[in-house]
Structure formats: structure tokens, C-alpha cells
């Protein structure tokens, strides 16, 4: 589909039937409105499920790499690969789809596939939708992103007057729509043009939101050149090490393994970790390559914009802005990149 708008568009007036159809086939996760935005939660019935205008507060990685789970045992055989059933996530946004691409690179890498990730990844159905009202922290546009998806979804939903246009982007999506063809009617004639217009509007809104910040086309080069820039020390002074940025980031994937002892057996647990944590890189002998907070803040950005692209050929930031919203101390990734762009322009 690649985000193209075809002639024959399928349409629903409300999302109820679609949600019920999804829930009848799979475990379903949906957005729930809360004060700060929308949270991705398990589906418990139709009442009050909103169409989220932008990404949810919590990242999709929670459903692919749980915060903490047992991954091995001694003796062996006490934990099985996830007993997950097929599941669908409604309310994903283009930045979430990009984040999944990034997680795929790590957890489905070469001969070292993470069987837990693989199992869940094979079972997920991705129901995306166009962003309708980009939020104040959204900055996907600065990194070349769009508020509508470019493929990589099973279904995508575009809001139009009087309802929603639903597109399939994969065999899984097509087969679902085929099975539930009674749900869908023909979209109004102007729907295609309206989608394009709404997408343009969302892009324009993103442009306005981020008008103070420059387009970051050369983040890798900027960070490599600006490795010693003062901005890291400055941001280190406002960061309170709450690690919220790494928790809510849909692409941060660091974890650590620890053992839990039970009477008859031991479990190896895999739990999210954060490179902002002081002892994250410390070795048993006490050496720590990133003792200073400013070093750790810089490492996080270097990982996203330099090291990950070196290794996998794509940036590890999707511009979702969750880290900006969750930030306790006031660190804004856009400010850091902005300082580096300015230093570059001024030849500092």
C-alpha cells in the first residue's frame, strides 16, 4: 500500500464493528484516554474507546519485550517460550511502526534471534492510524518521518468526515478485511482527497510545532563532530537521572539478566535497563567508562544517531517525543540536536 490512496476505499462509519471483529479473533489492545493523553491497555469492551490523535503514552515495546519476564531456568524447562496468543494492537502510529522495525533489527538479528521476541512478533497484528493532531512534543518531521504510515502495517485507518477509511497493508490485513467484508462500505467519493488534505494538514501542524528547531538531516555527522560539545554537560545539569526517557522510548531496548531463586528451581529474569543508570556500564572491577551523567546522556544519543546507524543502517530515534513528555528535569532531545546544528553552522 505504501501510503497510497487508491480509488476504491473501504469505509466504516464507526470503529465499533472493526474493534469487535478484532477482539473476536485475537487479544486486543486499545487506547484509553487519561489526563496526559492515551494509554495502551487491554480491550475490555467497546465503551469509551477513543481514536487517539497521536501515539499513546506507553510504547509498543511493552507488548513485544515485557518490562520483566523469565527467560530461562535451572533446571531447564521451567519456563516456556511466551504462551502469547495472537494479538492485535489498535491505535498504533507511524512512529510506532518505525520503532518495531528498529526492535526487529536487534532482536531478530542474524543467527541470534531472541525466541521470546520472535514469538510475540509473529503473533502481533498492527493496526495503525494516521495522526490527526500532532502533539507539542512530536518531532518525527525533523527526522524525516510523516504523520501517516508508509507501509509496515496490517491495517491502517484514516479519519474522514463521517467515518474512517480502512486500508490493508499485508496479507494478514487483507484476509481480515475479507473475512469481515460485511463491515465495510464504499467510502464517500471525496474520501481519498480528504485523506490527502488531512495528511497535509498534519504535516503542516508538525512544521508549526517544530518551527524553532532545525531539520536534522545529518544527526550522525553532527554528533560525531560535536562529541565534546558543551550541550551534554549543560543537559547533564538539568537531568535528574529518572530514566523515564529510556522507559518510554519505543526504541530503547537495553535490558539486564538477573537470577531469582525459588525453592526447587531458579529463574533467569530479563528486565528493562537504562543506560542513564550510573552503574549501567560498570564492570566488576569497578571501572566505569561513563561515570559522568553527561557521558551517559551523550552515549544515549550516540547510540541512537551514530552507533545504531553504523550497525544496522537506520536511526534509533523515531521522533515520537515521548522522552520529552516524560522528562522530569527538562532535557529535550531537540535542544541537544539544535545546539549541535548551530555549532556546525557557526563552525565552532
Amino acid at each position, binding site marked *: 500500500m505504501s501510503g497510497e490512496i487508491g480509488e476504491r476505499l473501504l469505509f466504516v462509519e464507526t470503529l465499533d464493528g472493526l474493534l469487535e471483529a478484532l477482539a473476536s479473533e485475537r487479544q486486543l489492545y486499545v487506547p484509553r484516554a487519561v489526563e496526559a493523553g492515551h494509554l495502551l491497555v487491554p480491550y475490555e469492551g467497546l465503551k469509551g474507546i477513543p481514536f487517539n490523535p497521536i501515539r499513546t503514552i506507553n510504547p509498543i515495546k511493552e507488548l513485544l519485550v515485557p518490562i520483566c519476564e523469565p527467560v530461562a531456568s535451572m533446571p531447564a524447562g521451567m519456563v516456556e517460550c511466551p504462551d502469547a496468543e495472537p494479538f492485535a494492537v489498535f491505535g498504533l502510529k507511524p512512529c510506532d511502526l518505525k520503532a518495531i522495525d528498529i526492535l526487529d533489527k536487534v532482536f531478530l538479528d542474524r543467527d541470534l534471534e531472541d525466541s521470546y521476541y520472535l514469538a510475540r512478533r509473529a503473533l502481533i497484528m498492527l493496526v495503525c492510524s494516521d495522526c490527526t493532531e500532532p502533539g507539542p512534543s512530536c518531532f518525527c518531521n525533523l527526522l524525516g518521518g510523516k504523520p501517516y504510515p508508509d507501509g509496515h502495517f496490517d491495517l491502517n485507518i484514516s479519519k474522514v468526515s463521517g467515518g474512517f477509511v480502512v486500508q490493508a497493508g499485508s496479507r494478514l490485513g487483507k484476509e481480515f478485511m475479507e473475512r469481515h467484508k460485511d463491515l465495510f462500505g464504499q467510502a464517500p467519493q471525496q474520501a481519498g482527497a480528504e485523506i490527502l488534505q488531512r495528511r497535509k494538514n498534519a504535516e503542516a501542524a508538525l512544521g508549526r510545532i517544530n518551527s524553532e528547531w532545525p531539520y536534522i538531516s545529518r544527526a550522525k555527522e553532527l554528533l560525531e563532530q560535536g562529541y565534546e560539545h558543551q550541550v551534554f554537560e549543560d543537559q547533564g545539569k538539568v537531568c535528574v537521572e529518572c530514566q523515564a526517557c529510556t522507559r518510554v522510548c519505543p526504541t530503547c531496548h537495553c535490558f539486564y539478566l538477573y537470577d531469582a531463586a525459588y525453592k526447587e528451581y*531458579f529463574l533467569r529474569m530479563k528486565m528493562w535497563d537504562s543506560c542513564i543508570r550510573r552503574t549501567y556500564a560498570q*564492570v*566488576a572491577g569497578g571501572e566505569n567508562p561513563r561515570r559522568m551523567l553527561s557521558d551517559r546522556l551523550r552515549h544515549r544519543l550516540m*547510540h541512537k544517531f551514530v552507533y545504531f546507524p553504523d550497525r544496522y543502517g537506520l536511526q534509533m530515534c523515531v521522533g515520537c517525543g515521548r522522552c520529552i513528555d516524560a522528562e522530569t528535569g527538562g532535557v529535550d532531545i531537540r535542544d541537544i540536536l539544535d545546539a549541535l546544528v548551530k555549532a556546525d553552522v557557526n563552525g565552532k
Partner: protein
Amino acid sequence: MVTNLYQPIGAKIVRIVDESPAIKTFTVVPERPMPFKTGQFVELALPGVGEAPFTPSSNPSDCGQLEITIMRAGHVTDLLHRSVPGQTVGLRGPLGNGYPVEAFVGRHVYIIGGGVGLAPIRSLLLTLFEDTSRFRSIVCRFGARTPDDLIYKQALFGPWQKVPGVHLRVTVDKADGSWKGHVGVVSSIMHPTDVDPRDAVAVVCGPPIMMKFVTVKLLDFGFRPADIYLSMEKNMSCGVGKCGHCMIGSYYVCTDGPVFTYEQLRKYPNIWG
């Protein structure tokens, strides 16, 4: 069926040798053979406590049992030091790349080790000793803090001295009354005439500060960065290039290392941290 990367196999500790007050060598027999290349590492788990990465110190040709030399340096190693023969541990691996021994063939192999860094080197030496004629020479410069801290003493002052083609010198930073040998840090027994750097590779393993100064010295001697092999110590947790702990720049020490050439690492600041 994809293998579970995080599942260890069981192994039994059959022998424990005291090497120094803080270092012991554990012989473990895995429930099935674990073939490894010299320089690769394993994650050794004390069930219920945790696991930590170690490079076996034994000859890879004996994959039915592994010898693992461990310094007491943290929670897991402290408890490992209190374990007894017969105890069950977990093993994951082998992991990482290991020493590219074939690239050493026909050249001088200049090996500099310090402290518990002699552990991976012992495995390498036992591999090289299988046919020393393949190498122009094997020149070793080893150091420890004190004579008490020096490990593998019996081999160092006995059989290894007699291996044809091997030139081995040992130093300690601080001597005691019994020590008759050289006193000084390991770089003090490195000499520009030890080997011809144009025709040699260097292998360095030891504490970060020692590796830093030895690397500087090797560069002074005229070694090319691509001929200096460094065994990097990082806190490898997953061992399979995912958890992020052991990153040096774009590299994961656990999958791209633990053996790197200085050429690979030199563009990254603070690699010795």
C-alpha cells in the same frame, strides 16, 4: 525451532585450584561438550545468584571440560569462590569471536598479560603450543601486582619456559623477600628488540590501565594498530548483542569481540574506562 539464547546448560565443578589469594581456577564439566575457540567466552552462572562472563583458560581441544580462572571481584565471583567441587553451575556459550590464531601463523606472537588477564592468555598459549613451529616465535611478558598475585606459577617457571620457540619473562610491581625476578610494571620488561613489529602481532590482556600503557608502548615500538589484539573487559550481560551493556562505540564486545584490534577501537574515546 529457534534456540533460547538465555538458557544455560548445567555443568559440574569437579576441581578448584587456588592460584592466588583472590584467584581460583575452576574445572567444570558441562552436561554436553562445549567446543570453543581460544579467546571466546562463556557466561558462567551460579544458579539463583547470577551469571558473569569469563574466558576459559584451558585448551579448546579439550571441550569435555573447561577450566575457568576467576578473580573475586563482585557478588557472583565472591560466591563462586566459596563453592565446592560437586556443585552445579550453569554455562552459556561459547560466545564472541576468540583469537584469530590463523592470522598469527608465520609471525612473531608477542603476548603481554597482567593479573587475571593471564587466564585467556593461558588458553591461547596452550593452543599455540600444539605446534609452535607455525609461528616465528612466541614472546611473553607477564606481570602481577605481587608474587602472591602471580597465577599459573608452576607452568610459568616450569614447562612453559622449556617450550621451543618460547621466550617468557615475568615481573611483579612490588616484590617480597622470596622474589628473585624483575620488579616493575609489565611495560618495563618490554623492549623494542623483543620482536620485529613489522613481522609480529601483539596480544594484550590485563587490567584496563595496563592495556592502555602497553598499547601506547607497542605503538611506540612501531606496531601497526591492526596488529595489536586487545581482549576487552566489559560487563557482558546477555552475551548475544542485545542488552547494550558491553558497547564500545558501534561494537558489542560480546558478539564483535571480546578480541579487537586497536585499529577497530582507536576512534572511540575512553575505551579503557
